[in-house]
């Protein structure tokens, strides 16, 4: 036990003192915040640009419908000939020319409108124009049929379904987003942690092998003890680094937002949310949703799956490190590590969000290599306690099995030099 403490301490200090580690710890949040600010800034730049679009309207009935906004400036070229209009658009380097020909019927007209431009025009601008024309044509059709537009406008019904559960508590439609964000963040965080610090464990094993200090050490401590010490020491360093990242990133982000007035939220994605959020009542509901999430369950299960998942993977990483002589040789064994991680993330982001309790989500939240990520994403949506229990039992069982397996490979591998092992060879080592 005393030796384990010594090993953990040494591993922790060795990681933390490493120059790359120190640089990454303090540079990463800077780069991260810098990138976000840059992207946000570029996005605002793009939006500031005013596009000038000319239109040539033979019907003459749409002129009043094209209203210039701060992004699009409409210019009326209907008094020119079509060819002159085209020439002057090119000459003045305008964004494009909209051509509305005169046709017998509205049906025909709808099909024959054209937009001339050198570059492929922005989809959302085209959508806007289409909407304006379609609106106008629809209204004309109504009038042709002798319908009163005011009556139609007044008879339109607006529906806003109120969501309420069976015990009478109101929730907002945002609650699913809140759950998604909580689950997604937890799963993604776990994956990142496993990849970064699992690799670090592997490198530390390879280093001891390459330095030839390994035999000196395992004449004093059991190989399994050394492996555990490495995993624990590295994870402590990892937790410290993540804590600094979150703290520093938060501070920098706050500074960046207030200084440059940059909105750190990615533009577009949140536009629809932002609209809903503007409603005071909705914001309150979202806060309620967050508070109503089973926070205690979330935190406990996060800790269990985080520790379990990390242990499972990092012992595999340690075994890989022991099997190879250098980091380049380790590539061939990376697939069984990366594949289930990626699978977990993809299942999480596609299947769980679509249907948290569907077959795929349920199965993958049971399989030990993917369960830490997938189950973490499912839990905010409410999972039966017995499902979580089974999943955790399976996870613990496979941790014991995999660590035992990895420990055996580790024990043999650290004393093997100059061999490029194959999977077949690794299997043989299990029996030594």
């Amino acid at each position, binding site marked *: 036990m005393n030796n384990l403490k010594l090993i953990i301490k040494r591993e922790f200090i060795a990681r933390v003192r490493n120059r790359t580690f120190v640089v990454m710890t303090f540079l990463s949040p800077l780069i991260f915040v810098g990138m976000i600010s840059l992207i946000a800034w570029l996005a605002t730049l793009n939006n500031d640009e005013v596009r000038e679009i000319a239109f040539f309207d033979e019907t003459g009935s749409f002129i009043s419908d094209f209203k210039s906004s701060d992004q699009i400036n409409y210019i009326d070229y209907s008094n020119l000939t079509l060819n002159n209009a085209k020439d002057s658009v090119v000459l003045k380097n305008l964004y494009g020319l909209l051509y509305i020909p005169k046709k017998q019927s509205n049906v025909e007209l709808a099909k024959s409108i054209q937009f001339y431009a050198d570059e492929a025009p922005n989809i959302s601008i085209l959508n806007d124009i289409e909407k304006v024309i379609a609106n106008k044509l629809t209204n004309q059709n109504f009038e042709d049929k002798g319908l009163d537009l005011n009556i139609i406008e007044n008879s339109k019904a607006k529906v806003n379904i109120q969501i309420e559960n069976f015990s009478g508590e109101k929730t907002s439609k945002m609650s699913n987003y809140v759950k998604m964000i909580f689950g997604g963040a937890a799963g993604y965080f776990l994956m990142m942690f496993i990849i970064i610090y699992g690799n670090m464990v592997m490198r530390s094993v390879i280093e001891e092998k390459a330095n030839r200090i390994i*035999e*000196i050490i395992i004449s*004093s401590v059991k190989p399994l003890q050394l492996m555990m010490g490495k995993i624990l020491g590295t994870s402590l360093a990892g937790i410290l680094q993540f804590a600094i990242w979150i703290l520093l990133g938060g501070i920098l982000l706050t500074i960046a937002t207030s200084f440059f007035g940059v909105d750190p939220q990615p533009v577009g994605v949140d536009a629809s949310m932002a609209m809903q959020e503007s409603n005071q009542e909705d914001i309150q509901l979202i806060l309620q949703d967050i508070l109503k999430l089973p926070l205690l369950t979330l935190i406990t299960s996060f800790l269990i799956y985080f520790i379990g998942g990390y242990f499972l993977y990092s012992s595999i990483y340690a075994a890989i490190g022991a099997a190879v002589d250098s980091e380049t040789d380790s590539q061939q064994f990376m697939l069984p590590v990366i594949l289930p991680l990626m699978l977990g993330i993809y299942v999480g982001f596609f299947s769980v969000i679509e249907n948290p309790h569907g077959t795929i989500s349920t199965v993958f939240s049971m399989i030990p290599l993917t369960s830490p990520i997938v189950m973490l994403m499912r839990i905010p949506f409410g999972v039966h306690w017995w499902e979580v229990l089974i999943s955790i039992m399976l996870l613990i069982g496979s941790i014991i099995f995999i660590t035992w397996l990895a420990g055996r490979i580790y024990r043999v591998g650290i004393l093997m030099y100059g061999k490029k092992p194959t999977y077949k060879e690794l299997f043989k080592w299990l029996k030594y």
Partner: protein
Amino acid sequence: MTNLLEVRQATKRFGTFTALNNVSIQVPKGSIFGLLGPNGAGKTTLIRIINQITLPDEGTVLLDNELLKPEHIKDIGYLPEERGLYKSMKVGEQALYLAQLKGLSKKEAKERLKYWFDKFEITHWWNKKIQELSKGMAQKVQFIVTVLHRPKLLIFDEPFSGFDPINANVIKDEILQLRDEGSTVIFSTHRMESVEELCDHIALINKSKKILDGKLSDIKRAYKSNTFEVGLSTENTKDLYQTLDEKFKITPADFKTIDDQLKVKITLDQNTSSNDLLSFLSDKAQVMRFNEVIPGVNEIFIKTITDNE
């Protein structure tokens, strides 16, 4: 004499390959025991079994008449053949770390390290990193770490590799001193001259089997063939050679002399003593040299292994 270490019929297989086949050795307390054998014979496997790095498939190991158990790690100091240190760690720090792993308290480890660092005059290395030191310098640190916890049993695998002759001598003297202070030493090497110089017991392992073991003097006695190397000064070398050739079994010998001499090796049969030979020779010529030929470890090593193949 009691044995500090006894390995009884140890066998170790790796898959279909038998690394160690029914090997038994006894290492007497206070001796320097040479573990010899060609590359790949199974020496390292045997050493790893003693260090509890690998477990034998069959057989037992007794240290001080007790079955080997995890606590015995503290009683053994091991300097492996493949050895190194953490490159980016400071010398003092990792010496402390390794000493603490062997069960020394930090305070104790510091005191003893200071003693050894002073002895080897390397105190100024304490805050240096291993990557700044030469290979020989690093070896010194490894040696200190091996002996620091004053183990009953010291195992050195090729201890002199990487040392220049001066430092090799320093290490040799330290090993002898540790023996005199009561430690038992197992010594695995290819350098036969250091075996000759240091070991009082040896075991020879070839192709995973032990083919020879015992007290070095006994082995030499068993291997000597009652042969004498003589140098004779006479007027008529040819005649003398002929006389000797008729009476004894002789082979030419080669050693350095100042004058011209007849140099031969004479092998005697059971009925003739060395005194008989000497009186016979002193009648015929002036005896300048009269030496019993005792086989060296090197010859024994080569002879035993080729005989076994």
